[in-house]
Structures are given as C-alpha cells and as structure tokens.
C-alpha cells in the first residue's frame, strides 16, 4: 500500500499485486505502445518529408536507416504497431460486441499476431 496525494486529501492506493493480471498488462502494453508511436510519428513524417528534396535526399535517409541499430529499432516499432493494433481490435470487440467468455482469449491471439508481424519484418534481415 502506498500514499498518494489526490483531490480530497491523501488516500491509500493499491499496489502492483492487484494489477498483476493479463487484462492489466494488456492495458499497459496498449498505453505504452500508443504513447511511443505518438512520439515517433512526427519523426516518421519528417523522414518521409525528405522526399520533398528529391529521390537522393530520401535515399540518403533510407541508407542511414540501414544501420543495424536503426533496423533493430524499426523491428521494435513494427512490434509496437502490431501490439497496439491487435490490442485495439481486442478493445473494440470488448466495447462494441456483446460480452462473451471467449473474449478473454483475444488477449493471447492479439499477442501472438503482434509477434508474428514483427517476425515477418525482422526475418527480412536474416
């Protein structure tokens, strides 16, 4: 238990032990991936905007992005994007379709698809 200041004074807050279940992890992944992607986007648009300077400018950028570390970062981004997408589909189903027990399995399916997408991207470099 920890203290936390909030409206109406200090209240005791729950700790990680009650958050340690799959649907909560899904929330963390979804929020973290969304935030990371939102921060990444302006840079992505800048990079593509290099095309405004002609093919050579864009080619410069693509070759810079050929470095192993950058490629690894790209695999990470694909993983984040796939995770956010599949987690989002799970949420859309939970919110818009009638509630069913099998929806809990959606979490596993979504995690699996994310990994597959990232692998498909990564294996191009093997």
């Amino acid at each position, binding site marked *: 238990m920890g203290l936390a200041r909030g409206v109406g004074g200090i209240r005791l807050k729950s700790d990680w032990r*009650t958050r340690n279940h799959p649907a909560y992890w899904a929330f963390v992944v979804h929020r973290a991936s969304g935030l990371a992607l939102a921060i990444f986007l302006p840079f992505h648009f800048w990079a593509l905007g290099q095309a405004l300077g002609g093919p050579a400018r864009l080619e410069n950028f693509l070759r810079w992005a050929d470095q192993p570390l950058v490629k690894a970062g790209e695999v990470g981004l694909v993983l984040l994007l796939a995770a956010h997408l599949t987690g989002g589909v799970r949420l859309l189903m939970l919110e818009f379709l009638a509630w069913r027990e099998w929806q809990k399995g959606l979490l596993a399916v979504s995690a699996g698809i994310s990994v597959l997408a990232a692998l498909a991207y990564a294996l191009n470099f093997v």
Partner: protein
Amino acid sequence: MTAPVGSTARTLEVRVWRGKEAGRYQSFEVPRQESQTILDVVTYIQRELDHTLAYRYACRVGMCGSCAMTINGKARWTCRTHVTSVGDRLEIAPLANLPVVKDLVTDMAPFFDKWARAKGHFHATQTRRDGFAAVRPDSPQRLQIDAAIECIGCGVCYSSCDVVHWLPEFLGPAALNRAWTLVNDVRDGARVERLAAVAGDAGCHACHTQMTCTERCPKRLQPTAAIAGLKRASLVVALAGAL
C-alpha cells in the same frame, strides 16, 4: 504466496495497518488454526492482543460485504478468505481509494455518494393502479440485468480500480454497474437522464478496460461489461442529439 501443503507453521506473522492515511504497519503473532479466515485473524488480534484495533464486519458469512479489506495487496472479503489461500505472512490494510476513519475502517460515503450521482436508483413511471409490468425473464435486457444485479456494494471493485485513483471524480465500477442494471430496466423512466449522468470524462468513458474490478469481484460480476454497455448506449443517445 500460498502456504506449502501440510505447513507446520504454528503462528502467523501478521502486519496490520494502524492510523489513518498516514500511519504504519504494526506486527502481531497470531496462533495458526486448522481452518481460519483472515476475519478470524483480525478478530483474534482485536480481542486478545490489541483492543484499540478498529475494524468492520457484520454477517461473517459472505453476504454483506462489510468486512472487505486489502489482504497482501488485493481487496477481498476477509470472512471468505482462508489463510491457506494467502500464506503465513499476512499484510492487512484498509480498502484503497477511500478515506480511512481508523485502522482498517474506511469511510464508505464517497462510494455511495457516487452511486447516487450515477442515478443508481429506480424511477417509477406507474402506480399501483396500473397493473403489473410484464417483463420476460429471458428478454435480452433482463438477462443483462441478471448478470449485474447481485452487487452488494462491498467496495472491492472501487478499491481495486486505478482510474478511481487517478480521477477522484470517476464514478467507479460499482456505481456504473448499478446504473447499467437500471438502463436496461424497461419500467424505469429516467433512462436518458441516467445516461447523461454516467457518460463522459467522469463516467463510463474514463474506463480503460483494465478489468481489475472484474478480476477481484467476490460475486464474479463483470463491471467492465456493464461499463462497455453504458458506452454503447450513451453513444447512441449522443448521436441522436438527446444527451
């Protein structure tokens, strides 16, 4: 952490929250019995070791929800939690997200105030002279109500919700769950007003489907499902311009 099968530990190490929001854990050693609930442990401490400990219980058989506390980080009913399902080392604290009156006793007023703010009460449209309302028990709306109606207002879900902690004005899973049962009640006359009361930043739309409420509910209710229903219902009304 569960106790090993055939545990020979004779005593339990119990840390109990003392004070209000600012306080400390006090340690006790409690004799271990063969069949013992957390409520038994707390009662033993108050009766035999420290009379100044404040705690709350009533039915002690899992019907009233008064004995809800935080046990080893998770909100539970202490009368229905066996020591063997938790372990030899216990950490007992009051429910989170609520003001602390003293030790293990929380002020439930904010919880029930939000129940009222979510318009969690029935609005009649008929009188005794109008005859019975005919509601089929297998109608889709009645089935939705049945799945959510058993809430006894124990506060476990409210105490477990991160959004309640982040947004003090958030109505919380129990109040929203109760509102959902009334939104589905075809006899109720305040559907649109209730949807207006439960929608928006302080209402159902603040829920992020973390599902800790559903995970922890001792009655196996699914407030997340009820809240999803409220999201759908309020969107329809908002798009129709009636909210």
